[in-house]
């Protein structure tokens, strides 16, 4: 199956060993989109590398960017000012909704429901418009800078976000009417691709996939970054760790993200948006690991500095790549039709898997 196949979400190639239509083994073949992002980092200055991380998870570029900026800030021992942190939180949560919407649309499409895709894209479009108004780009935004923000929030940002959040409440109900109680949808997702909590932890799976297995682990709560410690939100967890649970978890996460956005726009502190960082960034020699909760799981940056303007080594922990490792465990014993459902439910982006 693949690399050119309608539902491998890019260029994933899956070798399947079949007994009739039953899968008895699988192997993911990746690397079709390898660009050597980590190696590129060694020949770029810290600021120059920032746009590259947007090209990994290109449907959640804001989150990748946030992780990188915060990692370098940690290395520099500077902190972004409060205003910048709140705006970062708003944009990142919007990005989470956008990413989950894209997942929902394509996942439903894989299972054969054509219509949710367009509804999801309709709302995602609103979010992308907000991004475009903020920084001029829709996908590979490069929204944040090391030390804070490049751009001040535009005048109607709060209003736009508020309007979106208001509309979104009923929209999410709309998706749920189409899918949640649908017999066919339940039949296709319940009991499919079960990942137990122990397995999930053993594979290092993170994000909604882990939480659907019943492990309450969310870096936003466990190791708060940006401005998450100021807001109230719930971490939804599943029970069985099947595809249906992952669906429910992500739906609830979208609701929670919406609540975070609403809380955040209520009170955006005034003040500067850029911390005290120089034009030339020369972090002291040392190493740092910083991870944030991206829509797809824990995205971590391990950066080693040798005191020059370029990082000595950057290692990225991409959630898609690591979550994909659990694919074989989830897919065994299922039918070919379930394979696409499981690829969809892991929510991978090949740009991030291959880097």
């Amino acid at each position, binding site marked *: 199956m693949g690399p050119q196949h309608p539902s491998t979400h890019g260029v994933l190639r899956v070798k399947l060993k079949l007994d009739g239509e039953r899968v008895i083994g699988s192997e993911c073949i990746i690397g079709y989109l390898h660009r050597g992002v980590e190696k590129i980092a060694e020949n770029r200055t810290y600021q120059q590398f920032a746009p590259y991380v947007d090209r990994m998870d290109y449907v959640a570029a804001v989150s990748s960017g946030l992780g990188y900026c915060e990692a370098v800030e940690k290395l520099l021992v500077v902190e972004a000012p409060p205003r910048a942190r709140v705006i970062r939180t708003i944009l990142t949560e919007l990005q989470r909704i956008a990413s989950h919407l894209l997942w929902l649309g394509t996942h439903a499409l894989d299972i*054969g429901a054509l219509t949710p895709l367009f509804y999801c894209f309709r709302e995602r479009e609103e979010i992308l418009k907000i991004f475009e108004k903020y920084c001029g780009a829709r996908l590979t935004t490069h929204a944040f800078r090391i030390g804070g923000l490049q751009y001040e929030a535009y005048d109607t940002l709060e209003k736009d976000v508020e309007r979106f959040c208001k509309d979104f409440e009923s929209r999410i109900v709309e998706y749920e009417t189409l899918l949640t109680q649908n017999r066919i949808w339940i039949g296709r997702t319940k009991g499919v691709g079960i990942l137990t909590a122990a397995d999930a932890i053993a594979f290092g799976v993170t994000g909604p996939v882990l939480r659907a297995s019943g492990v309450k682990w969310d870096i936003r709560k466990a190791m708060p970054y940006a401005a998450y410690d100021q807001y109230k939100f719930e971490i939804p967890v599943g029970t069985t760790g099947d595809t249906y649970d992952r669906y429910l978890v992500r739906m609830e996460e979208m609701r929670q993200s919406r609540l975070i956005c609403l809380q955040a726009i209520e009170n955006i502190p005034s003040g500067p948006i850029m911390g005290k960082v120089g034009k030339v960034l020369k972090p002291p020699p040392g190493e740092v690991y910083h991870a944030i909760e991206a829509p797809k799981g824990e995205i971590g940056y391990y950066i080693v500095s040798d005191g020059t303007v370029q990082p000595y080594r950057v290692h990225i922990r991409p959630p898609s790549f690591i979550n994909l490792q659990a694919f074989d465990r989830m897919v065994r014993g299922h039918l070919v*039709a379930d394979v696409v459902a499981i690829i969809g439910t892991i929510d991978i982006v090949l740009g991030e898997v291959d880097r």
Partner: protein
Amino acid sequence: MSLEIGTDMNALQATNEFLRLYWAPLLCGVAVVAILPLIAGYIVLVERKIMADMQARLGPMRVGPHGLLQPIADAVKLLIKEDIIPDNADKLVFWLAPVLSVGAALLSLAGLAIGPAFQIAQDINIGILFVVGISAMGIFGIVLGGWASNSHYSLMGALRSSAQLVSYETAAGMALVSALLLTGTLNVKSIVEAQNKEGIWFVLLAPVAFFTYLVASIAETNRAPFDLPEAESELVAGYMTEFSGFRWSLYFLAEYTNMIVVASVATTLFLGGWLRPFARVPWLSFLDFAPPVLIMAIAAYCVLRVPKQPTRVQQLFMLAVAGLCFVTALVLAVPVVLPIIKPSVREAVAPFYAGIHGGFWFIFKVSVYIYLFMWLRFTLPRYRFDQLMRLGWHFLIPLSIINVLLVGVALIVGAYFHLQGWGLLLVTTPAAILALVAAFFILAVEKGHDARPDQTATSDFYVG
């Protein structure tokens, strides 16, 4: 001399007979083959438009006003595409398969009566059987095509398709039997006439059979949510994966023709064929005016939209469409308006009326049925193959068999009490309710042993 005239008359009659028997059907057949691709193209356009409407977008808008010429553009594109036959394909079978598919689909149209006067194969007494049998032949085209293209996706699609057809043909057949019990004939025209005589459509007398047929017919035509043979996200395009251009369009044509065929069968058997709704209720005869008024309304709408068209050509095109609708509406209006003006012509226009109004109602009902197909397609996710089989064998087939028995018993009871027409509802409604109870019972049993995929399947996997 007189003898000569007699021979002439005889010869004329013989020629007439010959014309009626051979040439008229041939002409009709040619007309069907020539027009059907166009109709199928426009069904696709309508489908895309409805889909777009349901999905908050516009659909085709570029070719012609509101994309009205899109089907023609598509057809031209398909015809001039390169004709690819994969290297390892079985060339003869690859060539033959789509032709077989489309041939079967078109042939089965011959047995259908669109109105009392429009039927290509006149009065075959096994009408329904002929239609169902021939349309099922189309599966050969699919299986052979899937096999001949020498690709995994194609083969899997073809196998799924055949398994699906075999499973659901049984349920559909049983559903048809329930309806046939009510008439005792397979002749298409007699079935409709029987519904006319009873004054009630069979969908009311055998609702469960109609429902079973609806589900089975969606599965038979490989439409969503049962479109597994061409499940895009799993099998790329199923049995059609290796086909392109003209061959692909033949498959496409076959698929849409099959849709028309199953919709026509359902219309004939359950929805009163070409009969107007409530044909026997006198005070509802104003419904006769519905067809011309409806089409006139479309014409008016087109005229209203003219100023909104961006270019002059598109405005003219819109006017042309309006004109076409206007003429159609006039033709439909003539047989209902004339008798009012001049009551003496009532007898004369009666067959004319039956012909064109029958055609209108038939096509209307077929369209509604096909709309139902589309609606389901845009709303529901796709079944998985094992679920599909389970639904067919464990639910639909038992249900339809039980229903046949119940309808049979109901009819015997009805005959005993000399019930007719609407009176038959007295016995068939309890039968339908019993069938529904049976359906819930079957579902409950099903839930009990809901087979889960085998989680323990393992293997030492390597790919090399």
